[in-house]
């Protein structure tokens, strides 16, 4: 498919043109984290309008794009209790045509993992709140040129310049221009909208080289290939490592909320008088009540068991059940952990145990 060159300084114009073409544009934007003079700016994905600031291609966002496909809370339907009768009102599944601009390769790769959970690929049940949003969403990804110390995408089969899941992929070259690659029909439509800003065929060689240079900056390299067979061996479920490493975990759930592939949710009624909404909202397998039975029995009763479940979900359950990667190596669980619990330490230890047991 088509390749071309785009000037980085024209990204503002890209937002203008996409907005004019009736796309809702989501892009990383720096915003003050707190009020007051001590606040530092953090980048999160926000809806942007023409003229708004953005930091596409600059740094890494603290949170990913998950809320735009799987919001942290959303009504499933409304109910009204009328005496002995109940009236239910469906929610709209008409979502706006959206482009997510400047999404990093790890985040866009996570979309197929979420899709494997929420779409009818999973046991035939289609969560249309997710899939209808996804149908309306186009992903314009942007290679990482400056991965940070927590990044480990190259340990899970991805790279700073991966285009998995992307509709239109951009890579910043050393001369400041962007090499643009159209990957899908949805990407073609974006290219058509911004056609006046595109020129030539880009520079495939420089783009390749930029990816190589970026990958070399990733220092955290772990073997993930040996994890699955070791985790699939039931004898290793009781390995002493789990308790030793997991003792540190506070169970705060920060890793799960920042994780692009964590998909656990709760369903509750938000009631006001005789009416309300049944709401689906993010939950965490790290919380102690998550698996608590009505009887008081808890299937994952201690924190290390809950951490063990999360690690298994990332590197075994996702692959066994959903046929997709459960970890995209974005590093957010490392950056966001208040006690510096590092998933790659587990990966390294499992890999070492797997090698030892294999030899």
């Amino acid at each position, binding site marked *: 498919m088509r390749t071309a060159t785009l000037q980085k300084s024209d990204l503002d114009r890209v937002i203008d043109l996409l907005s004019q073409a009736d796309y809702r544009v989501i892009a990383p934007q720096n915003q003050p984290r707190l009020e007051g003079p001590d606040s530092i700016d953090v980048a999160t994905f926000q809806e942007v309008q023409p003229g708004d600031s953005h930091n596409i291609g600059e740094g890494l966002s603290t949170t990913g794009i998950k809320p735009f496909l799987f919001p942290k809370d959303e009504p499933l339907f409304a109910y009204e209790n009328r005496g002995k009768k109940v009236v239910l009102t469906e929610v709209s599944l008409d979502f706006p045509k959206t482009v997510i601009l400047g999404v990093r390769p790890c985040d866009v790769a996570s979309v197929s993992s979420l899709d494997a959970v929420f779409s009818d690929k999973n*046991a035939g049940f289609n969560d*249309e709140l997710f899939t209808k949003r996804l149908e309306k969403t186009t992903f314009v990804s942007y290679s990482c040129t400056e991965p940070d110390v927590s990044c480990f995408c190259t340990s899970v089969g991805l790279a700073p310049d991966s285009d998995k899941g992307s509709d239109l992929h951009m890579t910043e070259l050393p001369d400041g221009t962007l090499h643009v690659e159209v990957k899908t029909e949805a990407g073609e439509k974006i290219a058509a909208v911004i056609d006046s800003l595109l020129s030539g065929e880009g520079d495939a060689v420089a783009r390749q080289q930029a990816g190589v240079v970026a990958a070399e900056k990733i220092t955290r390299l772990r073997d993930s290939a040996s994890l699955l067979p070791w985790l699939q061996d039931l004898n290793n479920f009781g390995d002493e490592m789990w308790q030793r490493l997991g003792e540190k975990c506070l169970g705060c759930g920060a890793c799960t909320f920042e994780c692009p592939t964590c998909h656990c949710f709760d369903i509750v009624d938000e009631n006001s008088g*005789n009416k309300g909404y049944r709401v689906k909202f993010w939950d965490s397998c790290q919380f102690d009540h998550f698996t608590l*039975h009505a009887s008081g029995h808890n299937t994952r009763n201690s924190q290390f068991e809950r951490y063990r479940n999360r690690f298994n979900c990332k590197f075994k359950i996702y692959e066994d059940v959903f046929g997709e990667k459960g970890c995209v190596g974005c590093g957010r669980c490392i950056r966001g952990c208040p006690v510096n619990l590092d998933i790659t330490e587990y990966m390294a230890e499992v890999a070492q145990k797997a090698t030892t047991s294999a030899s």
Partner: protein
Amino acid sequence: MSNIYQPDLMTIKKVINETPDTKTFHLIFQDEELQENFEFVTGQFGEYSCFGAGESTFCIASSPTRKGYIECCFRKTGKVTNALFDLSEGDTIGFRGPFGNTFPIEEWEGKNVIFVGGGIALPPLRSVIWNLLDLRDKYKDISIVYGARSVADLVYKHEIAEWEERDDVNMVKTVDPGGETDDWDGHVGFVPHVLENEFKPDPENTIVVVCGPPIMIKFTFEALERLGFKQDQLITTLENRMKCGLGKCGRCNIGSTYVCIDGPVFKAAEIDLLPPEY
């Protein structure tokens, strides 16, 4: 219905007080077409809701051979079950389902079947018990070993009496030591103990279906193995906490096995392959 989380509405046609804290609801769908066409297989479960309180997971406690209604049986324990407990005949509840796998009753044809249950775990067995009794000719001896903490905690007392009356059912009932009353005519002792030492079933051509809390399943399987039963003769259900029932909310998994999709019915050999998180 395009929204997999939106329940169908059902009317509570009848409420049966089973114990001081346990009720049965007899339910029919409000949508006539659904009421006409609804089908399920024994072993499956549903998500039952009281609007304003939320949803809870229970089995379908009636038999698919009894058309035109479903029943559920629940103990008031948390927010949702307390709210459901307060509803009365004519009130509306929500239902999503049927979900999950089923009891392989065709595989049991021509065999003896023993049902072993404890406490509030009789409802899932009751569905399959009536299913087999309604197809009585296809099965050999049918036995039910059921116990609860006390006489007051036994559910389906009227049906236990009915099963005792029938000459084609062996009904063995027990209560935990201290739970008996002066006029109690059943056994006194924990279910696995009564099963192993009083009932002493013969493993020959026999299937055993066990429902109960995890600790009861463990002790019952051990007792049955001492009696000579092999793993492929033993069936149980697992009841992990659920929200969606659709394999998405991430709550009921035991390693890579989702109780809502792969269960709730499991063979003993399948349980042995699971990590101990049930």
